[in-house]
């Protein structure tokens, strides 16, 4: 595994995990979004390790404003993330892209894409807004999903510890489900994003890598 920087002009470089031996098949991996990114990071990197063992290069860049990124998250949107991923695909010389969950919402159009268990932005927001309503209620503030949605679209909203700008919020709300190329039931276990505490399942990582290799074409 190599760690390094991935240029994202005209913005600052972003951190990227790479397994790069200049081989023919090169997969840009777009991570799951927000809290699911944390829950699936171990799984995602282990899956890349399996791809490496199968002779496939891969790269996992940070989405600007997340993980190690110094870019302000409030200034990001699905458009800016798609631009960053398109640039990463070009810099890396990706032949394919694999998206994990909500990562499907910012896939580049420049290379063939495999979507693993994709989800719509509205579904992501629904879960995070519900968590916010529950947390607010525990803290003694009565809010509702409707009020929070209106606030998010107007001026942005802090959800699951992420300060989302209004553009990001509106684009997530409007995004639709992408067709699934690899469904969770093909991996032989429940999705790891369901876990209350981040967890890993080596068998699922192995299976996903195997399916990706089979479906690269």
């Amino acid at each position, binding site marked *: 595994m190599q760690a390094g920087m991935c240029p994202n002009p005209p913005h600052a470089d972003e951190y990227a995990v790479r397994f790069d031996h200049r081989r023919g098949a090169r997969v840009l991996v777009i991570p799951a979004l927000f*809290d699911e990114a944390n829950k699936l990071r171990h799984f995602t990197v282990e899956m890349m390790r399996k791809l490496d063992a199968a002779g496939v290069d891969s790269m996992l860049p940070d989405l600007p404003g997340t993980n190690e990124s110094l870019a302000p998250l409030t200034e990001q949107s699905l458009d800016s993330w798609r631009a960053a991923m398109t640039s990463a695909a070009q810099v890396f010389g990706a032949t394919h892209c694999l998206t994990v969950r909500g990562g499907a919402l910012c896939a580049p159009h420049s290379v063939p894409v495999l979507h693993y268990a994709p989800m719509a932005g509205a579904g992501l927001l629904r879960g*995070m807004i519900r*968590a916010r309503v*529950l947390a607010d209620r525990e803290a003694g503030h009565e809010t509702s999903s409707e009020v929070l949605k209106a606030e998010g679209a107007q001026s942005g909203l802090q959800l699951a510890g992420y300060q989302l700008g209004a553009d990001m919020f509106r684009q997530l709300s409007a995004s639709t489900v992408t067709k699934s190329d690899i469904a969770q039931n093909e991996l032989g276990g*429940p999705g790891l994003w369901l*876990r*209350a*505490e981040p967890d890993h399942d080596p068998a699922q990582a192995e299976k996903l890598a195997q399916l990706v290799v089979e479906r690269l074409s």
Partner: protein
Amino acid sequence: MASNLPVPAEEAGDLPVETELALRQVLQDVLGLSEDRVSELDEDSGLFGDLPELDSMAVAGLLTELEDRLDILIEDDEVDGDMLGTFGGLLEFLVSKRSENVAQPEQDA
């Protein structure tokens, strides 16, 4: 498995049994419990407030997954301590929610 179902089985058909199975499965997936551990949960087993890993984010994920698997919609104001406090409370809520669906089937568009 001992059963303390809130609706008489004859009236409700398989609904409570199916619902209980789905709830155990979702709890197993969310909490990462073994099948043995999850089969030990009974009516009085504490959930929200008793299990430290069930924070607001995890509860939100749990409810969303239950909505998907049971084809129900849970409103903000239906989520409270009674409903989330125990396994029995949550099961009772889910069964009554699904009974509403059966009583008032969604009309085809």
